C-alpha cells in the first residue's frame, strides 16, 4: 500500500495507525523469521505513538522502518555490530528521525545491515542473516539489506537506509523496490553513525517513486547540527512528479554498458531505456571516461574516512569493553578486536595504511585527485543531459556465501553505484522487471537513474516515468 492510499484510508476511517502497526507486527511474526530483516522492534512504544498520531500531518500515522545505524531516542542502534549490540541505547534523535516525528511518522523497527554499513550483501552483519524475499538462498544486497527486504516482503511500508557507495540502491535493486540516494548535503547526517563522512547520505526505500518523494520532502533541508548539510531551498518534489520525460535528454554512458553485465540485466535495462524513449525522451550516448577508476578510488577514500570515524569505538564511552584489561592499551586493542567483525577490521587496516606516513600521497592524495576527475566527468555529462541511465548492479542477487573469502571480488560488484557518491550526485534505483539468473527463474533488476547535484526533482520525475 502506498502512503497516499494509507492516508486516504485513515481519513475515510477504514483503518487507524494503531491497526496498521498491529497488522505490521503480525506480518513480522508471520514472515520475518524467514527473511531476517528486523533486528528489533518496540511494539509497545509504536502503539503508544500511533494512538495519538496527528493524521493531518504529511506522514501522519505512517510507520517507517529504520536502518540500525540511525539514532532514535531510547532505541538500540547496533550498526549490525557486536561492539554496539550489548547495551547501547540512542541518547538522542537523529535529525531525520526528529523531522519524521514532526511530520507524524512513526519510527518502527530497527533493520539489519552490513556491520557499520560496510558491505554489499548484509552478510557482514555480526548479528543475523537476512535472506532475499524472492529467493531465501540469495543475498538481499547491502548494506541497507534489512530495510530493502522488509519493504519487499511487506513487513514494512517504507524504510530509511543510508548509502555510502550504493547501500540504498543496490539492495533496492536486488529486492525489487525503489531506493533513493539524495545528493550529498541534501539530508542531514546528524545522528547517522558515520562510515565515510564525505560520501554518506540517508535516503528512503519504498514501493513507489511517489513514496520516496514524500519521504525526501520531509527529511531534506538544512540542519544547524550538520555543517555539511546545505542551505539550498527544498523544492516541492511532488508537484512535477508526473510531468513525464517528453523532450528530456537522457544519457547512456558507454562505460556502464560494457562487458561483465549479465545479459538478463542488460536486456531489462535496455527495455526500460526504450520505454522512456517511447515516452518522448531523447536518448544520448555519453562517456564518463574515468569510470574505470571508481572502485579503486572509493576503496581508498571510504576506508580512510572509516578508519578515522571508527576510532571512537574504543571501549571507553559506549560499546563493548573487554573484560578486566590490564592497562589502557589492552583495553583499546582487545575491545576493538572483540567488537569488530572481519570486514570492518580489513577496512580499518586499509584506511590506516593509506593515511600513514609515506603512503598518504601515493594512495589517499592521488585517490582524491582521481575523485576530482570523476566529479568532472559528471559535471561535463550534465552539461548535455538531464539525467543518466544505467544498471544498478552487474548481476541480480547472487547466492549467499559466494564471496566470503574474496573481498576484492565483492568490491568490484559496486562498480555502477560508487561514482554517484564520489561525485555527490543524486541517484535512484527503480525496479525494471525480472530475469532468470544462475538457476533462479525470476530475480528483480534495477534501473539506476543519476541526476545532477540537488537535481532530485528531475531525478524523481524520470524515475516516475520509468516505474
Amino acid at each position, binding site marked *: 500500500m502506498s502512503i497516499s492510499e494509507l492516508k486516504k484510508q485513515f481519513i475515510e476511517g477504514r483503518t487507524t495507525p494503531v491497526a496498521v502497526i498491529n497488522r505490521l507486527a503480525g506480518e513480522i511474526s508471520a514472515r520475518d523469521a524467514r527473511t531476517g530483516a528486523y533486528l528489533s522492534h518496540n511494539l509497545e512504544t509504536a502503539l503508544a505513538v500511533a494512538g495519538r498520531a496527528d493524521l493531518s500531518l504529511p506522514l501522519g500515522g505512517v510507520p517507517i522502518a529504520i536502518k540500525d545505524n540511525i539514532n532514535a531516542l531510547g532505541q538500540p542502534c547496533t550498526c549490525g555490530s557486536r561492539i554496539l549490540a550489548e547495551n547501547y541505547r540512542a541518547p538522542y534523535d537523529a535529525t531525520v528521525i526528529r523531522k519524521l516525528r514532526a511530520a507524524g511518522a512513526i519510527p518502527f523497527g530497527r533493520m539489519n545491515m552490513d556491520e557499520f554499513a560496510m558491505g554489499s550483501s548484509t552478510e557482514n552483519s555480526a548479528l543475523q542473516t537476512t535472506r532475499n524475499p524472492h529467493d531465501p538462498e540469495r543475498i538481499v544486497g547491502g548494506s541497507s539489506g534489512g530495510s530493502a527486504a522488509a519493504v519487499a516482503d511487506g513487513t514494512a511500508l517504507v524504510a530509511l537506509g543510508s548509502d555510502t557507495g550504493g547501500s540504498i540502491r543496490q539492495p533496492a535493486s536486488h529486492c525489487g523496490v525503489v531506493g533513493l540516494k539524495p545528493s550529498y548535503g541534501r539530508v542531514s547526517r546528524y545522528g547517522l553513525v558515520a562510515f565515510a563522512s564525505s560520501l554518506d547520505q540517508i535516503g528512503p526505500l519504498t514501493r513507489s517513486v511517489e513514496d520516496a518523494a514524500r519521504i525526501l520532502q520531509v527529511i531534506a533541508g538544512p540542519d544547524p547540527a550538520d555543517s555539511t548539510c546545505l542551505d539550498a531551498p527544498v523544492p516541492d518534489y511532488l508537484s512535477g512528479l508526473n510531468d513525464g520525460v517528453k523532450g528530456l535528454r537522457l544519457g547512456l554512458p558507454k562505460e556502464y554498458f560494457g562487458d561483465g553485465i549479465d545479459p538478463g540485466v542488460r536486456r531489462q535495462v535496455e527495455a526500460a531505456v526504450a520505454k522512456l524513449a517511447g515516452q518522448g525522451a531523447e536518448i544520448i550516448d555519453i562517456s564518463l571516461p574515468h569510470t574505470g577508476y571508481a572502485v579503486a578510488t572509493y*576503496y581508498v577514500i571510504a576506508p580512510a574516512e572509516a578508519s578515522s570515524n571508527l576510532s571512537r569505538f574504543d571501549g571507553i*564511552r*559506549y560499546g563493548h569493553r573487554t573484560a578486566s584489561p590490564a592497562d589502557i592499551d589492552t583495553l583499546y586493542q582487545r575491545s576493538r*578486536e572483540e567488537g569488530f567483525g572481519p570486514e570492518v577490521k580489513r577496512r580499518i587496516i586499509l584506511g590506516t595504511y593509506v593515511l600513514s606516513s609515506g603512503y598518504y600521497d601515493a594512495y589517499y592524495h592521488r*585517490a582524491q585527485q582521481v575523485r576530482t576527475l570523476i566529479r568532472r566527468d559528471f559535471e561535463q555529462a550534465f552539461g548535455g543531459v538531464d539525467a543518466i541511465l544505467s544498471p544498478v548492479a552487474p548481476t541480480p542477487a547472487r547466492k549467499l556465501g559466494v564471496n566470503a573469502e574474496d573481498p576484492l571480488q565483492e*568490491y568490484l560488484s559496486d562498480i555502477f553505484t560508487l561514482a554517484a*557518491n564520489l561525485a555527490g550526485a543524486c541517484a535512484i534505483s527503480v525496479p525494471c522487471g525480472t530475469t532468470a539468473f544462475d538457476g533462479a527463474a525470476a530475480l528483480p533488476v534495477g534501473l539506476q537513474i543519476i541526476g545532477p*547535484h540537488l537535481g532530485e526533482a528531475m531525478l524523481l520525475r524520470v524515475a516516475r516515468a520509468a516505474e
Partner: protein
Amino acid sequence: MPQPHIDVRYVANLARLALDEAEIATFQGQLDAILGYVETLSQADVSGIEPTAHAAAVFGRMRADEPHASLPAAGLLDNAPDQAQSQLRVPKVVADA
C-alpha cells in the same frame, strides 16, 4: 607507487586492533590483493588536478550563537561500559614514576 604490501601486524597496532595470527594471515593476502587493484590509480593522469575532499564542500559554516540544552549526562553515561560518581571509569592511564 610503492609495492603493494601492507605490514598487517604493524598497521593493526597503529589502529589499536589486537589481531590474532590467523587473522593476520588471512588479511595479508586479501589486503595485498586489494592494494594491487588500487594500483590502477597510478595510470590516471592527475598532473595539476586539485584533490576533492568533499563532493559539495562548504566552508566556515557557523550556527547561530544561541544557548541551548546539551544532551543530559545521565543518558550518555548509561551507555558507558564502566562508570562511577558521574564519570567514566578506565584503567590507570599514567604509569608509576
